[in-house]
């Protein structure tokens, strides 16, 4: 590594080049983060004019609020179901596209396209796709009236959200996983095939172990991303309803802070959520990251 850094002989130039981005990160990430932690210890008046230091009172209030725990629980359920599916589905697609089956070449291109669509647009489209009267599930309702209605039934709304999230996660994870699969030397497949391993055996014993770094990357990103990126989907598909059934923590923070002007409560929840995400990523690195072999 030392040979690479010696490429920059000038002492300040690297810093100067990085400065614009650092400035943006400080302005739009570290300052708000600091502000959130700061406000979580104050009762802040919504339109300025004063605040009062209240110590851990905000934390006590938030942690004793059943709504907070419900939103937290929903966040975890969403994280586990949606993120897992958002890796598994692209994994299956990538394995299929990696093989020489019909249309695998165009599929490798087409599956990447949704990356260009904003979360909010995906939300609008999925709200339509899962509409109980004109959407995919409409035939179900004709058979059993009222069986599917995300506007009334919280579980239906949650399923819609998971489906939209998985779909929106396909392109990125697909690219990463496919790249991993493509980089596996062809000779390994041939050797395994010579030894009598069928396609399934080769997936589990050759391909999956060799793309562990890529799988780990997608899982880490998905788990942490799913907690925050779901905001656009919630806002456009369900608005957190019905009856709060799709109010994940990130959406509750938005509603409390920006619609309800509870700046202190929203800041406190932000602080808690941030610590949770950091812990989560740390756990993944400590318990999973170490076991991954990056050498080939």
């Amino acid at each position, binding site marked *: 590594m030392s040979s690479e850094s010696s490429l920059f002989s000038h002492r300040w130039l690297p810093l100067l080049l990085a400065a614009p981005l650092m400035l943006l990160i400080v302005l739009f990430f570290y300052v708000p983060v600091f502000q959130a932690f700061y406000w979580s210890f104050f009762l802040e008046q919504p339109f300025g004019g004063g605040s009062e230091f209240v110590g851990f009172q905000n934390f006590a209030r938030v942690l004793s609020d059943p709504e907070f725990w419900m939103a937290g629980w929903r966040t975890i359920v969403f994280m586990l179901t949606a993120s897992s599916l958002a890796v598994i589905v692209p994994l299956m697609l990538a394995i299929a596209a990696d093989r020489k089956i019909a249309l695998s070449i165009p599929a490798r291109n087409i599956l990447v396209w949704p990356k260009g669509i904003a979360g909010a647009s995906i939300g609008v489209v999925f709200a339509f796709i899962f509409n109980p009267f004109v959407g995919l599930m409409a035939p179900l309702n004709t058979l059993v009236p009222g069986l599917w209605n995300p506007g009334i039934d919280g579980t239906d709304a949650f399923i819609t959200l998971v489906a939209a999230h998985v779909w929106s996660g396909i392109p990125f994870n697909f690219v990463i996983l496919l790249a991993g699969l493509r980089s596996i030397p062809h000779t390994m497949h041939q050797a395994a095939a010579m030894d009598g391993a069928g396609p399934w055996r080769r997936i589990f014993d050759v391909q999956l172990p060799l793309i562990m770094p890529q799988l780990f990357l997608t899982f880490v990103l998905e788990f942490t991303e799913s907690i925050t990126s779901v905001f656009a989907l919630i806002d456009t598909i369900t608005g957190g309803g019905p*009856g709060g059934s799709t109010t994940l923590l990130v959406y509750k923070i938005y509603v409390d802070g920006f619609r*309800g002007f509870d700046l202190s409560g929203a800041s406190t929840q932000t602080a808690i959520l941030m610590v949770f995400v950091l812990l989560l990523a740390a756990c993944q690195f400590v318990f999973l990251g170490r076991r991954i072999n990056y050498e080939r």
Partner: protein
Amino acid sequence: MLSDAVEPVQDLMPDVKWDQYIAGARAYYETSGGKLFAQPYNSSTLLFYANKTELEKAGIMQTPTTWEEVIEAARKLKAAGHACPFVTDGDTWRVLEQFSARHGLPIATKHNGYDGLDAEYAINATFAAKHLANLVEWRNEGLVRLAADTKAGNYTAAFNAGECAMMEQSSGSYTAAAKAFDGKYELAVNMAPMYRGYERHNTFVGGASIYVMKGHDKAEIDAAKAFLDFLRRPEQQMFFTANTGYVPVTTDVLDAIAKSGEANSPKYATAKLGVESMNQPATADTRGIRLGFYVQFREVFMEETQKAFAGQQTMQAALDNTKKRGDQLLRRFEQTYKGKKLP
């Protein structure tokens, strides 16, 4: 109001005839002492909309004025095969606030918070709780539909398209409904329905009002005053009413409409009804709502009542929860503005 950021319009322009403002619009934007704090602008109130053509098809000749009549009409419509007799989105403003106001019921103690920050919610113990429980029952009976039950997915769209026959909606919705109905259905508009045995009180004003902020120099304040004067002019208000369905807010505009020779024109249909509805006898509980973190309370109300509509809890439990969570909001608001008094 507590941030001391606003210059009350009545202090700023003491010479304007503020008593010309219709009572329901005035009280909502008044200080506790009765001074107008902001100038009402795009004002609306809750009205009852009916698809007269569909009602007549089911044999209902009179547009309902009471809830008993609404439900009777809904039963007839259902019997005639109508899938959506009455539609609502269950919004706090429509099903709780306007209902409580016109039935003279308090939403919170201390006259809905006008008399102090230590108010508490009362919604789980007034007749409004009974009405909301009725809505759940009527929905189960197929008489009332929620927005999410409709094909349109939006209750105004569902009514305007003819899917649903009756709704409660802001007067500001009139023009859109009239346009959508044009040539297909006949539209009937009335004051929002009452329960029999209850005296009708004023409905709250909806929409928005204009505040003058402190800390500007004289030239800017003069410009603001001139703008407010302009907006108050009868011909401006008439133009606005005719094109939007929002309700005029001063009595001289009503006179001007009466003299204009177009008093019965549909473009002023909501003006008369809306003003009449907001000018009903007032009580100390129908002045308005002055409760801290009220926007959050509305979210809580929607969340809890949606659970009741979905059958996850009874409406009474939903309202008890709403009161509990609402009171927590009020106590926190009180603490946030410790030592301050409402103007």
